[in-house]
């Protein structure tokens, strides 16, 4: 079966299940008795296993299967959850994620078997079995699985180790009781064979001349679907004593059959074998696990059911499955069906509006007065539809930041263990929506900030105690919408930024002189942290402190059209505030005019607009300022800034657009205000984008290009 068309869905859904598992395990760590969560985890693990199996990712299936077994035991109260187990489970999740990444890149799961993990999982199972009184049901599963694996992987397996279900055995028993004879055969098909199922079918056909086939391994269905390697086993039931060689010959006569082996068997053999099964499986495993044991120094007794032997597994690549190494790159987005419905409705309205315009243009008999009236009505209607349509499309692009921030609790947990500092991440506002492109790219900067908080922010438990804080550090990640912006805050109750230390460093590095440093405000000092290669970590850890942290965060966020700010009180903690535009493509802007040029200023950065008499302009250090309601605001003459031709007449009043960036203000002097408008941001092409003042361009209603001023560059 060709499953490649499902690959994208598989990737999407696997990611979801992994997230669900991760969330669940986090909850479980704190509330090990929560039955609902356990059930949820179990379901996720089960679906994961099923999907991996369907897609033919055997290694992934194997791992998830063993995880599922562990969850099963947890569900049955046979295994107690402790942090060791949680660690193993998280490692397993990482491994599955590893598989997923490989699948994404190559459409194949790769060859990593993760035996160590599987072994660890099975140790837990074993412990559970030893402890629990009855475990056969649960135990059967891994053994069965292992057996299947063994048969698939090991070439030596033959008809005597066939895997039969009870029903078949019953049927065989009956036939035997009726005096029939049973013969087992193992057929080896040539490895070059392309139509294995057809060959198998011919073999069956040949055997049917001698007797009835009572048992197949793998099942007949699997053989027909070519779901087997190059060997299969059958049991034939005949009434009279046949010529064994003749049977073998008949089967061997089918082309592309390498070898046929066979012999008399009885049901008792199989029963006996079943009894031994566990033991043999164990032996096989022991062998498989042996090399591992040596590597993993203090390894406990081998697990009852462990991984398939590594060597054959690695070499075993189904020849029938074409190897597609094409990376799966297309990105999908999940859209609420309601959003799509409203989109659909608006498109139908658009068509209706178009039709009435068409009808109007073809009916030229009516008097022009009424025609122009209804024409205007239609235009208004059209306007309304396009506005709604735009809104709907934007909504479709919006996704909750949940998908990005979800992985953070896990990260903080890992960091907490690694650093030996107890800490907890509290998140709020995960459902805040942002443009898909922003959500995709905000992950890294946020991760950096969180790592920063965990590593540098939160103090050691001893110091915290000394300072009278709870031993466990808290990191808060909160997101909320504010006007056209989304604010994401990373706050910790840790050490805060030691401005004196930063100042000293800045002087050391020659960024400022000592005298200059004395006059710096705390804010200016903190801004040093955002300079490239200015790391405050006393020693480099692998968590943060390579000096490529905050400056990258800042530039990443600025690339998304946002900015980042820090507030910090030494000894009490720091807050990083990331401000992001809701969407990248379309913004509300105020259109202003300078001479005959039009510029757009993003509405979100505008505080207010003032009409000020020229006489109120004051001078501070030869720079123009205005004094407005208690605040001194520097003036920026847009015409000077943009090298416009000088103005002929000096007006009595000037129009000042007051813009803000963080806590600072500036007044932009323009000639004229045009009005508020929704504008689509366009790139200006690579060759001309060489100044920071202009962040892009937009096309106005009349087709003219207007430039967008980047207010942040004015400060």
């Amino acid at each position, binding site marked *: 079966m060709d499953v490649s068309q499902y690959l994208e869905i598989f990737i999407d859904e696997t990611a979801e299940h992994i997230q669900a598992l991760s969330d669940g395990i986090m909850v479980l760590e704190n509330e090990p008795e929560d039955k609902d969560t356990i059930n949820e985890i179990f379901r996720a693990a089960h679906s994961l296993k099923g999907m991996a199996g369907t897609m033919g990712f055997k290694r992934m299936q194997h791992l998830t299967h063993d995880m599922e077994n562990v969850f099963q035991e947890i569900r049955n109260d046979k295994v107690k959850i402790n942090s060791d187990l949680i660690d193993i489970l998280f490692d397993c999740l990482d491994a599955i994620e590893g598989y997923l990444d490989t699948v994404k890149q190559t459409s194949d799961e790769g060859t990593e078997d993760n035996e160590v993990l599987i072994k660890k999982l099975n140790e837990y199972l074993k412990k559970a079995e030893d402890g629990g009184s009855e475990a056969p049901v649960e135990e059967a599963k891994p053994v069965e699985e292992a057996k299947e694996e063994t048969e698939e992987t090991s070439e030596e397996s033959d008809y005597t180790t066939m895997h039969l279900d009870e029903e078949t055995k019953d049927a065989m028993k009956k036939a035997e009781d009726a005096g029939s004879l049973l013969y087992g055969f193992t057929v080896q098909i040539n490895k070059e064979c392309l139509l294995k199922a057809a060959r198998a079918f011919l073999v069956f056909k040949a055997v049917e001349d001698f007797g009835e086939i009572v048992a197949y391994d793998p099942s007949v269905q699997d053989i027909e679907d070519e779901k087997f390697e190059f060997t299969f086993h059958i049991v034939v039931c005949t009434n009279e004593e046949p010529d064994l060689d003749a049977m073998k010959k008949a089967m061997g006569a089918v082309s592309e059959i390498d070898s046929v082996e066979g012999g008399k068997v009885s049901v008792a053999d199989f029963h006996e074998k079943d009894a031994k099964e566990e033991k043999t499986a164990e032996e096989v495993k022991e062998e498989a696990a042996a090399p591992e044991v040596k590597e993993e120094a203090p390894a406990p007794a081998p697990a009852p059911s462990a991984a398939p032997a590594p060597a054959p597994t690695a070499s075993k690549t189904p020849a029938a499955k074409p190897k597609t190494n094409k990376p799966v790159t297309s990105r999908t987005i999940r859209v609420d069906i309601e959003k799509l419905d409203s989109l659909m409705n608006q498109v139908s309205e658009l068509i209706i509006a178009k039709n009435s315009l068409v009808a109007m243009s073809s009916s030229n008999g009516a008097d022009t007065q009424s025609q122009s009236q209804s024409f205007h009505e239609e235009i208004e209607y059209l306007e309304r539809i396009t506005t709604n349509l735009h809104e709907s499309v934007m909504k479709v692009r919006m996704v909750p930041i949940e998908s990005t921030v979800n992985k953070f609790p896990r990260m903080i947990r890992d960091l907490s263990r690694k650093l030996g500092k107890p800490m907890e991440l509290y998140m709020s506002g995960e459902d805040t929506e942002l443009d898909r492109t922003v959500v995709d790219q905000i992950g890294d900067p946020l991760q950096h900030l969180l790592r920063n908080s965990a590593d540098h922010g939160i103090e050691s438990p001893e110091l915290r105690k000394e300072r009278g804080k709870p031993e466990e550090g808290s990191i808060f990640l909160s997101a909320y919408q504010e006007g056209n912006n989304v604010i994401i805050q990373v706050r910790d109750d840790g050490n805060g930024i030691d401005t004196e230390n930063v100042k000293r460093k800045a002087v050391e590095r020659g960024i400022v002189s000592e005298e200059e440093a004395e006059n710096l405000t705390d804010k200016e000092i903190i801004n040093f942290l955002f300079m490239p290669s200015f790391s405050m970590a006393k020693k480099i850890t692998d968590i943060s402190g390579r000096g490529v942290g905050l400056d990258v965060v800042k530039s990443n966020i600025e690339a998304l059209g946002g900015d980042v700010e820090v507030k910090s009180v030494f000894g009490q903690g720091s807050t990083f505030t990331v401000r992001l535009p809701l969407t990248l493509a379309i913004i509300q802007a105020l259109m202003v005019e300078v001479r005959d040029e039009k510029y757009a200023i993003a509405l979100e950065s505008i505080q207010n607009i003032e009409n000020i008499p020229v006489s109120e302009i004051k001078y501070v250090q030869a720079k123009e300022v205005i004094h407005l309601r208690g605040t001194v605001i520097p003036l920026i003459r847009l015409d000077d800034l943009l090298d416009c031709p000088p103005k002929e007449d000096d007006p009595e009043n000037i129009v000042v657009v007051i813009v803000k960036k963080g806590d600072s203000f500036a007044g932009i002097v323009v000639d004229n205000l045009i009005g508020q408008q929704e504008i689509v941001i366009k790139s200006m092409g690579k060759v*001309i984008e060489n100044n920071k003042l*202009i962040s892009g361009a937009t096309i106005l209603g009349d087709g*003219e*290009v207007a430039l967008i001023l980047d207010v942040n560059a004015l400060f």
Partner: protein
Amino acid sequence: MSDKYNLEVVEEEKNQYIVVSIGSEQYGIDISYVDNIVRMQKITRVPKSLPYYRGVINLRGEVVPVMSARRKMGLEDDVFTKASRIIILKLEAQGMVGIVVDEVKEVVSLGQDDIDQNVHSTKGDNGNFINGIGKNGEDLISIFDVYSIVDAVENA
């Protein structure tokens, strides 16, 4: 077989060039780089950009930067007439770029034999974006090196 081969060779050797006039000279632009030729339209000035950029225009909903060949070559500034055109070049690395020219004359096919590669610029630095002189009958056509004319060299 050999005939077909020869035909291909002939086709490969002849390149088509759009002949434009800038000042008193004629220049050729390899047609494979040309996306479009548009009439003069309002160009929005971009402050603080390199001086030889005239600004940006709206080309079917896309914003395309437009440079002045005259400014880049150090000639006197453009005077827009009815014959003025903007040649829109499409380059892999730089995207779309427009170049203002005085007039578009014709399209000529020139083989390698018709182009004299041995050009020594006498104009100094500003003449570096010519990589050959084509001979079309009596006329001489300077062939633009499209990439170097678009490259941001701050010398104009």
